[in-house]
């Protein structure tokens, strides 16, 4: 196996480079279910209490979209496996990002070439990345299992759950490795693997929510098998044989593709560009359009069109889930009829969409930092372009790009939902409004990232992504962790009014959030005008 020579050394290199980042994400992931379990155990100590909790959560189609179908029994372990299923998707996301970081990013930067000239086998770099991430995923799995055992849940279920989490990472490490073979740019590889993860999530979720003729979707994707492990209730160990086989097959395909191509090249051939710039490429805004258009189009189609259609399509089935839950139906009817369930579903999914859009907003704002660190801002700033004009080009996409994506999401959700209820015009207006009402919270994250970029350029990626992660954690598990309302209110998303709904829109929080976003952006730009460029 000379093609694997040097794999051990390269694994040590990855561990050395990620010695801070890797323990942090591993620990966060390992602590997530334990924290949830201890919080839930004190809130719902009895089976009956947990059953009531499960029933109330499962009455929301949105949560079924996230967590999968409700567990068959109300044991603490089963509840936590179900309730913390978001962690499965996050494991997949981290795994694909880390694998691409150590494969295609290295290749694009030319460092793979330097290593490839030493005594390193053809497959070593790819194998080292996949093995490291898979190993880290398994360690997370063991930690999750130990944590769950420490919460007095049965050991077999705890290990089934830990392995399920580990395999979410392993499967998407393999998919990331595959995506890294396709394109010459790391950004495009991340886009492909991330889109597959999103599609995986949406297909499985649609199967779980819609059921009936679509229930086969709940078995259609890699992550769906991880959900189907049903730790504590089913403990379907045989699924791990299936996931192992699929992960191995994916890695082998990636290795074959990797061996069949040149270092630095992708399977999708690079094309020649125009010899002259078009008339639109003449300003910082024109340049920003070229740099941002790919991700804007990707997000608009991925979340806006596909997500919007799914949200709108599932919304009409939301009311049917209420049947059999007398108490909830009663509450809903008092609030304004059965359509309230659909409204809550649409509002909730748009809230989740807004978090995803915030990720796009942060990455678009951080594009300024990428440009500066790669010294690409230098020739532009040396060519008759003021700093504010340069930054404005990127800010257009960091502030308005997410707005476009949300508006398109609302448009398609409203169209599809309205078509099913026969009132297209009314629903489009309501749902687009409900989508846009989220924007002030997204802009706060953009503003925070811009402020960090101006004041602490080196730390700005960490600040931006940590703020987003904090919002995700506060929104997803904050309440279950028994955090006080004052802590939950730190997330700008907690101040967004619930729309669409019958109540009037309170304008004050929207105005305050927008003002905070504007102040943060202004602060960042002021600092940017005063500081040295580039700070490397």
């Amino acid at each position, binding site marked *: 196996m000379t093609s694997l020579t040097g794999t051990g050394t390269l694994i040590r290199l990855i561990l050395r480079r990620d010695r801070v980042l890797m323990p942090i994400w591993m620990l966060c992931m390992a602590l997530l279910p334990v924290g949830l379990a201890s919080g839930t155990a004190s809130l719902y100590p009895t089976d009956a209490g947990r059953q009531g909790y499960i029933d109330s959560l499962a009455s929301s189609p949105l949560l079924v979209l996230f967590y999968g179908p409700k567990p068959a029994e109300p044991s603490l372990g089963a509840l936590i496996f179900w309730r913390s299923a978001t962690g499965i998707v996050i494991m997949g996301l981290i795994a694909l990002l880390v694998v691409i970081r150590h494969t295609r990013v290295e290749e694009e930067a030319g460092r793979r070439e330097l290593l490839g000239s030493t005594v390193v086998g053809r497959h070593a770099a790819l194998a080292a990345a996949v093995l490291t991430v898979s190993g880290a995923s398994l360690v997370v799995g063991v930690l999750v299992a130990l944590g769950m055992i420490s919460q007095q849940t049965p050991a077999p279920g705890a290990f089934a759950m830990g392995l399920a989490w580990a395999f979410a990472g392993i499967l998407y490490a393999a998919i990331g490795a595959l995506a890294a073979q396709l394109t010459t740019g790391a950004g495009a590889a991340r886009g492909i693997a991330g889109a597959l993860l999103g599609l995986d999530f949406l297909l499985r979720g649609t199967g779980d929510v819609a059921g009936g003729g679509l229930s086969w979707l709940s078995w259609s994707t890699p992550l769906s098998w991880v959900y189907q492990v049903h730790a504590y209730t089913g403990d379907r160990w045989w699924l791990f044989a299936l996931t192992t086989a699929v992960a191995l097959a994916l890695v082998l395909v990636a290795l074959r593709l990797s061996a069949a191509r040149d270092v630095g090249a992708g399977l999708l051939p690079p094309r020649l560009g125009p010899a002259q710039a078009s008339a639109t490429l003449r300003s910082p805004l024109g340049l920003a359009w070229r740099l941002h258009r790919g991700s804007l189009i990707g997000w608009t189609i991925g979340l806006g069109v596909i997500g919007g259609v799914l949200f709108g399509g599932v919304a009409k089935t939301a009311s049917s889930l209420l049947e059999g839950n007398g108490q909830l139906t009663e509450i809903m009817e008092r609030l304004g009829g059965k359509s309230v369930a659909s409204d809550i579903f649409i509002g909730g999914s748009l809230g989740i969409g807004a978090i995803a859009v915030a990720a796009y907003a942060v990455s678009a704002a951080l594009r300024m930092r990428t440009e500066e660190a790669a010294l690409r801002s230098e020739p532009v700033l040396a060519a008759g*372009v003021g700093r504010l004009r340069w930054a404005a080009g990127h800010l257009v996409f960091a502030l308005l790009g997410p707005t476009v994506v949300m508006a398109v999401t609302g448009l398609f959700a409203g169209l599809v939902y309205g078509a099913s209820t026969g009132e297209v015009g009314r629903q489009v207006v309501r749902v687009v409004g409900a989508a846009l009402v989220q924007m002030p919270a997204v802009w706060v994250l953009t503003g925070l990232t811009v402020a960090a970029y101006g004041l602490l350029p080196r730390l700005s990626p960490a600040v931006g992504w940590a703020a987003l992660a904090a919002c995700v954690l506060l929104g997803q598990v904050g309440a279950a962790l028994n955090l006080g309302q004052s802590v939950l209110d730190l997330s700008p998303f907690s101040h967004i009014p619930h729309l669409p709904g019958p109540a009037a829109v309170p304008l004050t929080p929207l105005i305050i959030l927008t003002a905070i976003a504007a102040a943060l952006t202004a602060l960042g730009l002021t600092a940017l005008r005063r500081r040295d460029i580039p700070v490397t």
Partner: protein
Amino acid sequence: MDNAISVVGLTKSFGQAKALDGLDLTVARGEVHGFLGPNGAGKTTTIRILLGLLRADGGTATLLGGDPWRDAVALHRRLAYVPGDVTLWPNLSGGEVIDLLGRLRGGLNASKRKDLLERFDLDPRKKGRAYSKGNRQKVGLIAALASDVELLLLDEPTSGLDPLMEEVFRQVVAEETRNGRTVLLSSHILSEVEALCDRVSIIRLGRTVETGTLAELRHLTRTHITAELATPPNGLAQLAGVHDLKTDGATVRFQVDQAELDAVLRQLTTHGVRSLVSQPPTLEELFLRHYETEPVR
């Protein structure tokens, strides 16, 4: 204002590290000024301050009669800059980058662009990520040289170019100066500096250690003398300007400062010169003397 660039006592620190420590630099309009110094001497920092990208801690800098920080945008319309390591946007073609940078600067000379593409033998249709180091450098050079500006700031512009392309670069810069352009050329390639520059400044550890025309600098260098004499020499070591004297019987080897050459030769002839070998001073020696790591003065 006769000077395109006038820098006095410039200082700049990055945290604890002192990058510039009282640097002086004067570039007259219409001249090609060589800017020399070992790695880390502060050349790039100086150029970035002149571009208004970094803010100086102390001292004054004037560029084309304006303040490089305050008037950055207005000044940038009148200059073009080539970094030592041109980085391109991976998904933009070379041609697009040339046009973009030219337009941002306020216009590009289309016929010059075409001519330079031919002379530098560059395919403008390739995407940024597909270019080699040398070809990326050509994109930066063409973008700068194709615009009709007053001042060119070139920071080791030929790094990665092959000798043929370096020759093209020299021709183009020579043509530009004939059209009255001012050039600040930071470089390590002495032949390039000798071929192009009217005056040079040598900096070390953030400070200017030598500045002047090439002839003046040559004057600062030493001539190597090997002489066979009729009688053993005496008193030679005491003469001003004699360095590294080695006596082997009646043969002496030493270096002598250009300014003292006449007096030293007069002394030598009193001993009866049988043979004399004199090696002319090279700029390289002067540079190496300043590049050495110990503080010179």
